[in-house]
């Protein structure tokens, strides 16, 4: 039986992951032959790490997902710089810009998304970004940003969402004077409530970032900066546009596939044509939001199971999203439904608002389980709560300890004095010696630490209780 030919349109994070997952299940290419078509000239890279590249902590070549010989080693026909221009569903073929055609048994659309450009006068010239303006989406964008953003130069970031803030923090860390322009009254409004937004803005402000919230850019003048809708001005040698993305659906729509905000797929990641699938940013599944890598990776696993025939029951049911801001010196996690108010019936809400220390915590619980949370400046609480949320297990009843994590003032009393220790307290763990046994030995005549040790073996193991035994001997001597 000859293997089926699967063609992947798009060699970004989703397409690359899908190819990896297929080869994990079918290393010898016995079930599936793979052709991967990438429109860009370079290998797939990890988009999540682009903010680290902008921040300067990672070199551009470190974010590549595959080595040069990845495709050869895995028997994959990888074609770079291969732009698809048409899907011929009747003939089951993809037509490329150079006029060649690639036939398929199954087609996987992993075309991703492209940045959305807000309507700002002067920002685009003939549909292209004007000089001094750049999007924040690709490795090439990063290089453009790093070339243009000389230390000390003013930079404007259009968009106060997750990526915009990561870019802003990275650039501020490199010594740029950064202003974030955001049309909503608080940053990251998709993930945060206004309170959390305020604390985050304040913390970022302390790191040198200015904010113009509730304001839109009206006009861009290269070499000068932005004019905002209230008439104010923002100096900028460089404008970084991070105002959201739109699914890349052109080829799918032209081919007559059902398209809404993205290419519509079901739980088997099928489009309206059963031989064509879609995953990642270009796909629209009711169970998830696009623009994040986690859903794309989970979808890649499901689809690889289906198309290799190794898991025909695999279905994608959506992804519960946890948003983490990757910005040095800031720890922010947001998950689930964070909009619930304290008055909502059947909902338990806890809040902590501590702007002076950059901390904000909000926990939303339903049926004893985490339904949503915002955790800013509470790193270990974020880790614990995320696990509870992902695993759907009941939350511990000590909600305050849960919300604060290690920030909770220790409830343990200061080290108890020998007098206060109960007789049953184990003093020497290596030899299971309790305070009571030491007291008995002392009463039987062992009056020094050495004598106590030889009578009870306390402190003769690892020796770490020697001070405690000494303390008990002193206390006994003082009470004699």
């Amino acid at each position, binding site marked *: 039986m000859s293997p089926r030919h699967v063609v992947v349109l798009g060699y970004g994070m989703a397409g690359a992951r899908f190819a990896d997952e297929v080869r994990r299940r079918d290393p010898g290419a016995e079930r599936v032959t793979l052709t991967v078509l990438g429109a860009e000239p370079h290998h797939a890279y990890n988009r*999540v*790490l682009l903010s680290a590249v902008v921040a300067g902590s990672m070199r551009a070549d*470190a974010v590549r*997902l595959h080595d040069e010989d990845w495709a050869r080693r895995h028997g994959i026909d990888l074609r770079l710089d291969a732009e698809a221009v048409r899907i011929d569903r009747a003939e089951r073929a993809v037509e490329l810009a150079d006029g060649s055609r690639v036939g398929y048994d199954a087609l996987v659309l992993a075309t991703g998304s492209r940045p959305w450009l807000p309507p700002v006068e002067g920002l685009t010239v003939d549909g292209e970004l004007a000089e001094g303006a750049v999007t924040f989406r690709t490795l090439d964008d990063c290089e453009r940003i790093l070339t243009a953003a000389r230390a000390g130069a003013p930079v404007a970031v259009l968009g106060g969402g997750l990526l915009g803030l990561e870019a802003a923090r990275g650039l501020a860390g490199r010594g740029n004077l950064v202003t974030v322009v955001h049309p909503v009254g608080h940053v990251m409004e998709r993930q945060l409530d206004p309170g959390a937004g305020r604390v985050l803005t304040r913390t970022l402000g302390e790191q040198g970032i200015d904010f113009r919230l509730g304001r839109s850019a009206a006009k861009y003048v290269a070499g000068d900066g932005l004019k905002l809708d209230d008439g104010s001005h923002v100096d900028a040698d460089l404008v970084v546009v991070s105002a959201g993305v739109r699914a890349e659906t052109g080829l799918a729509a032209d081919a007559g596939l059902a398209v809404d905000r993205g290419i519509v797929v079901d739980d088997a990641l099928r489009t309206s044509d059963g031989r064509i699938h879609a995953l990642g940013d270009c796909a629209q599944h009711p169970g998830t939001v696009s623009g994040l890598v986690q859903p794309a990776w989970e979808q890649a696993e499901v689809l690889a199971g289906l198309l290799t025939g190794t898991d025909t029951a695999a279905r994608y049911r959506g992804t519960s999203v946890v948003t983490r801001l990757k910005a040095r010196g800031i720890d922010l996690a947001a998950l689930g439904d964070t909009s619930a108010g304290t008055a909502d019936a059947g909902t338990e809400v806890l809040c902590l608002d501590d702007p002076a220390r950059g901390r904000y915590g909000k926990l939303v619980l339903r049926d004893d389980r985490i339904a949503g949370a915002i955790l800013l400046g509470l790193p270990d609480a974020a*880790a614990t709560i995320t696990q509870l949320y992902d695993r759907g297990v009941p939350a511990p009843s000590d909600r305050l300890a849960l919300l604060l994590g290690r920030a909770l003032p220790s409830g343990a009393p200061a080290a108890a004095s020998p007098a206060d220790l109960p007789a049953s307290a184990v003093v020497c*763990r290596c*030899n299971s010696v309790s305070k009571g046994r030491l007291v008995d030995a002392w009463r039987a005549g062992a009056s020094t630490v050495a004598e106590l040790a030889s009578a009870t073996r306390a402190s003769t193991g*690892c020796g*770490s209780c020697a001070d405690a035994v000494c303390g008990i001997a002193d206390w006994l001597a003082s009470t004699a």
Partner: protein
Amino acid sequence: MTLTAEPTAIATETHCPYCALQCGMSLTSEAGGTPTVTPRRFPANGGGLCQKGWTSPALLGSPARLTSPLVRVDGELRPASWDTALDLVATRLREIRRVHGADAVAVFGGGGLTNEKSYLLGKFARVALGTSQIDYNGRFCMSSAAAAGIKAFGLDRGLPFPLTDLADADVVLLVGANPAETMPPFVQHLTGASSRGGLVVVDPRRTPTAEQANLHLTPAPGTDLALALGILHAVVADGHLNQSYVDRRTTGFGAVWRVVAGYWPEHVERITGVAAADQRRVAGMLARARNAYVLTARGAEQHATGVDTVSAWINLALALGLPGRQGSGYGCLTGQGNGQGGREHGQKADQLPGYRKIADPAAREHVAGVWGVPPESLPGPGRSAYELLDALGTGDGPRALLVFGSNVVVSAPRSAHVAERLSALDFLVTADLVLSETSALADVVLPVTQWAEEDGTMTNLEGRVLLRRKAVDPPESVRTDLQVLSALAQRLGQPAQRFPADAETVFTELRAASAGGPADYSGVSYDRLRAGEALYWPVPDDEHPGTPRMFLDAFAHPDGRARFVPVAHTGPAEPPDEEFPLQATTGRVLQHYQSGAQTRLVAELNDSVPEVYVEVHPDTARRAGLTDGGLASVVSRRGAVTARVRCVGSLRPDVVFLPFHFPGEQRANLLTNPALDPASRMPEFKVCAVRLSTQDGAR
């Protein structure tokens, strides 16, 4: 004034019978009484002993000791003479071999056996029985670290440096290790790091070791591998990669980075539950330390992905430039008394003495030469421990089994199934000190000596060879394992001189058999050990001073470079689900050793911890209708255990813990998952899915 001299008490310098630390102790025996123990200044224990060591002589004169061979007659084990017992064993083994072939007889050894016993047992299997079917309980211990160490460094020695080197480290990262309970005097070597703020412990539980840590990371069970990847990612992202070391001394970093690049700390936080900030903090601590160590133990190793997990931690150590540098390094904390030596001399399915591979023609020729047999007469590799137990009494599996130094009914995973397999055998023989749970099922039980009653060498967790001397006479009618093997071999037609019963004679042969192998003991002699020399293998000749620190100039691969091994996280073999929503992890308590067959018979130890318990978060207990101190039923797909509830507030609410030292219905291994690591064949002891209910199953 009397003229009779006071009876002179003779003190013998020896080592503790339990864990791989092999604490130095002196045994003083006075006529008629139980010998007394005094701790001895020895570098590994610095004069310390834990409760197990202090009480170790209690078992020498214990009424539970076996003092006569036992033979099953009409379903009952009855005393018999040695000749009767040995004749019966030889006759039955011959018969089974004649009818079903040589591989129908299997041998199961232990990591507590001396080097001499491990060696002779392997030889007995390959030469006297001609079977390939031999393996040992070390497979359940550190086999994952051994396999990963060989991949990375070309050779496995648990600690490739003396333990006392740890004292000078700024940072020690302990992964899945609880030495404060498993080898308490070890903890003194950590005080340097902890006083400098650099003791980091990775463990899902807040163990006594974790309580002493400056930073305790609590990954979900089965996610340690991902944590290592996250920390390595942070090392690179924060500019701490030791590029010159990576260039000079290693290969393969590029491929590792392609994987690790996909495990940024926030992603790893979601898998493990360890805060991204803590991952970065550990990366920074390790990178800034003058000297640092990464040490793994069973928590990292006892998984179906154990080898990959250890490889991930070794990758981290290599990226920081730690291995092969004096004062820094990677090491595995071996557990059993002779866990190190026991894995070197041929009781492992795929091995010959000197840590040689049984499939290697040159190794076969060398060892066969020492043994005086044709190389082609040696069988090939056999089944690994769990696979061997699983095959017992099946169509093509062994029909007879000899067990030395192991209590598989308690210590193997899915133990109810293992007991079933044992009962399907035609013939089961054990050599034992006491009637362990496994011996109780045997057809013939042979009573053997214990540590203080015989000479033998042990190789401790540092790769240091130690002489454990005979201090007292064994009870009458008790023989050494070497005597048993020698007598059986002769009854199976072997010449007497091929199976000597004297430990030093066996060791002399072991030296020759190991010569030229990775674990070369040829320069180690009883005389040098008696003279107090500190000999760390390899010791390739009589003048060689031994090798306390390995890899300083080169690693053991042909090109001298260490290998980065690309590994990715896959998670536990049995994830929790609606039916079994919790994860159980198993481990040890200070008072007991391994299956507890010995320590449960020492009153002082057993009184401290007399029965199995289950640690549960108080909220989880309440939801299951359980109360602190009451009884719970812990149920997995493979079995159920009734255990006393201990509510522990520091535990993750989705995790429970049980110690595995207890027999019968209290066996934690009734629950565990025998999913095996593809390379080391290590079972997944450390995580399986369970549910809790009240004892009557009300919930």
